[in-house]
C-alpha cells in the first residue's frame, strides 16, 4: 500500500478543524478545553497553593505539577482507568514544556496543579493537552511569559505532514510522529519528541511546518481567552 494522499483528504499542510473554550470547569481556579479534529482535551488548574509533603517545597519558587490522564471511554477499546507508564511520561513532558513560560518566583513553597483529561482521543493528545493546559494556566491568573502552542508533525510514508490522525500514525508503510510545542512570540521550542526515523532535512521541514501550525493554534487560544471575558462585558 502506498501513501499518495491523506486518508481524510486533507492537504499535507492542513490541520484538522480546531476549537477552544475557556472556563469549562466552574470549581477550578482556571480551566480550558481544546479540540483538534476528534481529539478533545480538558485542563483544570488549581493554585498556587501550599505544597505538602513539606520536603517537596522549594523556598525559591513555586513548582508546577502536571497530571495527564486518558479517560477510559476516550479510545475505541476501553482503557483501564488510572495512571500507567505512558501517562506518567506525558505528564512529565507536559510539565517540562510549560515550565519555561510560567513565572512562579512570586509564590515560594507553593504548587500549581494542572490536571489534563483526554475525553476523546484520535492522535495528538499530548499536544492538545499542552494547548489546553497553557490556556487554563492563563485563565487561573498564573504569571506567564507566553502561551504555549503544540502540534504534532511527522512523516507518513515518504511525505511530511502536519497533525497526524490515528490512521496515519498507524500507517503500515512506516510513520514518524514528532510532537512539537512552541512559544508563539519567540518561536522557542519547549517540547520535541520523535518516534521513528527521519533525515535531518526532513526534520527541519517538519519543524517549519510545526511553526506555521503553532501560529494558527495561538490565534485560536488567544481568541478563546479574550472571548471568555468579552461575554461579561455585554451582560
Amino acid at each position, binding site marked *: 500500500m502506498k501513501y499518495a494522499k491523506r486518508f481524510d483528504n486533507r492537504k499535507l499542510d492542513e490541520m484538522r478543524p480546531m476549537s477552544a473554550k475557556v472556563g469549562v470547569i466552574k470549581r477550578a*481556579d*482556571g480551566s480550558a478545553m481544546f479540540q483538534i479534529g476528534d481529539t478533545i482535551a480538558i485542563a483544570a488548574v488549581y*493554585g*498556587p*497553593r*501550599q505544597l505538602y509533603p513539606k520536603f517537596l517545597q522549594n*523556598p525559591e519558587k*513555586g513548582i508546577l505539577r502536571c497530571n495527564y490522564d486518558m479517560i477510559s471511554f476516550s479510545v475505541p477499546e476501553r482503557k483501564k482507568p488510572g495512571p500507567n507508564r505512558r501517562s506518567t511520561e506525558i505528564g512529565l513532558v507536559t510539565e517540562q514544556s510549560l515550565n519555561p*513560560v510560567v*513565572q512562579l518566583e*512570586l*509564590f*515560594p*513553597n*507553593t504548587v500549581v496543579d494542572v490536571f489534563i483529561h483526554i475525553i476523546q482521543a484520535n492522535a495528538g493528545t499530548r499536544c492538545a493537552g499542552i494547548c489546553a493546559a497553557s490556556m487554563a494556566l*492563563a*485563565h*487561573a*491568573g*498564573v*504569571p*506567564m*511569559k*507566553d*502561551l504555549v502552542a503544540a502540534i504534532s508533525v511527522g512523516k507518513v510514508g515518504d511525505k511530511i505532514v502536519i497533525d497526524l490522525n490515528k490512521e496515519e500514525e498507524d500507517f503500515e508503510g512506516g510513520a514518524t510522529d514528532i510532537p512539537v510545542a512552541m*512559544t*508563539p*512570540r519567540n518561536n522557542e521550542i519547549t517540547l520535541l519528541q520523535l518516534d521513528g526515523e527521519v533525515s535531518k532535512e526532513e526534520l527541519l521541514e517538519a519543524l517549519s511546518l510545526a511553526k506555521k501550525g503553532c501560529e494558527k493554534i495561538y490565534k485560536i*487560544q*488567544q481568541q478563546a*481567552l*479574550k472571548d471568555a*471575558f*468579552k461575554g*461579561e*462585558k455585554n*451582560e
Partner: protein
Amino acid sequence: MGEILLKDKEIAVPGEVLAKGMDYIPAGGTFRENEDIIANQLGMVSINGRLVKLVPLTGIYVPKANDIVIGKVVDVTFSSWLLDINSPNLAMLSIRDATEYIERNADLTQYYDYGDIVAAKVTKVTRNKAIDLSTKGPGLRKLNEGQIVEVTPSKVPRIIGKQASMITMIKDATDCKIIVGQNGRIWIHGVDPDKEIVATAAIMKIEHESHTEGLTDRIKEFLDKELKK
C-alpha cells in the same frame, strides 16, 4: 518613537506585545523584553500617560502591606496565631500586634480560638512570603456576628468603587456594617436581616457584572427596588 499596540481597556493574554519602544514604562502585570512591553498575565490594559499596566481579571490574592484582610484562625502557637487569609501562605498575628491585653503564659485560645474570624491589617510581607498581621487600627477586631461573602479577589476594587463610592452606597442604603477584605472576603452585619440579604445580593451582583459600564447606577436601582418590597 514608540507605539501602543493594544488600546485602553482591551483584554490582553500572556505573551502579547502591548507596546513597542522605550517611551513607555512597564507597570504591574507586564515586563520588558528588548524594547517591547509584554503582558505576563490575563488582564485588562490600562494606559496612564507613559505607564502601561495590566489589571488582572483572574487570579489568587497576593498579600501586600497595608491591605485590610479577613482571616480565619487555623493554628495557635506560643506567641502568635496563624490565619488563613485566602492566599497560598498562612499569615501570622503575633501577640505584640494584637490589641488585647495578654497576660504572661496565658492560653492564647481565650482571645482568638480556632475557627475565629478576624479582621486585620497586613503590616509586612517578606520576599519569602512571611506575612505579618496586626489588629491595631479602627474596626480591626474579632468578628463575632454577621456573615462572610467570598468573591474573586480581583473584583474587590470594583466592589469598593472609586473613593469607596460603591460600598458607601450599599452601607447607607441597607444600614449594614460591612468590612471588605482585599483578600476577597466580605463581612456583612445588619440589624435588619432582610436588609442584610439585600446587601449580600448587591455584592454578588457587582461581582457578576464587574466589567460593565454604569454599574453604580444599576446597583442603586437594584437597591431601591429591593428595599421597597
